[in-house]
C-alpha cells in the first residue's frame, strides 16, 4: 500500500498533546503546517541538514518532554553525521521520522541516495539508536514517539508526489518567540541571567 506524506504526518501529529515538533527544510515543513500550524512547531526554512540537531538541542534542554523531528530524506542525508552525535548523547525523549519519497522534492524531484538503496534506518541503527526501522505501521510509530525509550529513528516510505504548498510563518524570530512562550511561559521573555 502506498502511503501519502500529508496523511502520514497528519496521523503522526493527531492528538499530539505536549509533543514538541521540529520539521526540516522543504516539504516536511509544509507537511506539519498542513496538519495544523501550532506554536510548538518549529518549521525550518533554511539550515538544511540541521533538523536532527535542532531536535537534539531541544531534547537535551527539555528532557521531560517528547521531541519529534520530521524531516525528508534529502535533508537527513545532508546531516548524516548528526546521527552519530545523537547516538553518543542517547536522548531517550527524541524521535526522528524521515518522510522518504526518495526525491529532492523542492528542486525538480531528482532522485536522492535512498532511491539508490542507501538505508538510513541502517545508518541510525549502526549509530546506536535504540529503535530504528523502515516502517509503514503508523500506529506503532505514534506510540514510540510518545512513550518510546529513545533515541528512536523511523523511515516512512511515501509516494513521490508534488503537492500544493502549505506555508508556515516565515519570520524566524516570530517562530522562535512563539515556540519559547508556549513552552517556557513568561520566563521566555526574562533575561536568562542577572546583569
Amino acid at each position, binding site marked *: 500500500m502506498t502511503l501519502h506524506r500529508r496523511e502520514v504526518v497528519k496521523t503522526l501529529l493527531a492528538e499530539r498533546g505536549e509533543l514538541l515538533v521540529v520539521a526540516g527544510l522543504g516539504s516536511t515543513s509544509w507537511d506539519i503546517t498542513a496538519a495544523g500550524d501550532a506554536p510548538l512547531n518549529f518549521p525550518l526554512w533554511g539550515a538544511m541538514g*540541521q533538523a536532527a540537531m*535542532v531536535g537534539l*538541542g531541544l531534547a537535551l534542554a527539555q528532557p521531560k518532554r517528547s521531541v519529534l523531528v520530521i524531516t525528508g530524506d534529502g535533508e537527513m542525508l545532508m546531516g548524516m553525521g548528526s546521527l552519530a552525535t545523537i547516538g553518543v548523547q542517547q536522548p531517550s525523549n527524541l524521535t526522528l521520522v524521515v518522510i522518504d519519497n526518495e526525491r529532492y522534492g523542492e528542486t525538480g524531484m531528482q532522485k536522492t541516495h535512498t532511491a539508490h538503496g542507501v538505508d538510513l534506518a541502517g545508518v541510525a541503527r549502526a549509530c546506536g539508536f535504540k529503535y530504528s526501522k523502515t516502517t509503514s505501521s503508523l500506529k506503532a510509530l505514534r506510540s514510540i514517539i510518545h512513550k518510546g525509550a529513545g533515541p528512536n529513528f523511523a523511515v516512512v516510505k511515501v509516494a513521490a508526489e508534488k503537492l500544493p504548498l502549505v506555508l508556515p510563518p516565515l519570520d524566524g524570530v516570530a517562530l522562535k518567540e512563539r515556540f519559547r512562550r508556549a513552552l517556557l511561559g513568561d520566563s521566555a521573555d526574562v533575561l536568562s541571567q542577572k546583569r
Partner: protein
Amino acid sequence: MQPDWPQEVHRALSTAQVRIVAYVPDAGHQRLIELCQGDRKMRSVVLTTEEEGIGLACGAWLGGEKSVLLMQSSGVGNVINVAGMLRTCGIPLLMIVTMRGEQGEFNSWQVPMGEATPGVLQAMGVSVRRASRAQEIAPFVADALRHEQATAVLISQGVIGIKSFRQ
C-alpha cells in the same frame, strides 16, 4: 604570569548557567573541554562537524538553554550557511574559536581559512571579539553571554601556542 584562561572561561560559562557545551576538539581547547566534561551541571556534546553546533544551539535555545560552541578557525568555514539561522531567528550562541594560520603557523594549509575567519563570521552577522592576550578571553566571554547575541571570541594563536609537528 599567564592567567589560567580555561579556568576563567569555565567559571564565566558556569556563572552564566551555560549547560550545553558543544565542541569539535582543538588542542588549544583541550583543558577547557576537560573542565566542562568534569562539570556535572554541563552536558558536553562532541560533534562530527561544527555545523551541528548551530542546529544544537538553536534547539537548546528553543528549549530555554544557552549553549557554547568550541572549535578552531577551520571550523568557521564549515558553519557558514547554517549560521544564517542565528541571525534570522535571533539565537544567542557564543562560539569560542582558537585561531590557526596566524603568526608562526607551520601548516600553510591552515592559512587561508585562518585569514578569512573574522571576515566570514562578520559577513554572516556574527559579532567578533579578538583576544590577543590570555587575560582578555574570559571578560569577552562574559560580555558575550550577557549580551545574548551571536558572538565569536577569537583566541589568537599567540595565546595558545604554535602546534608542533615534532611530537
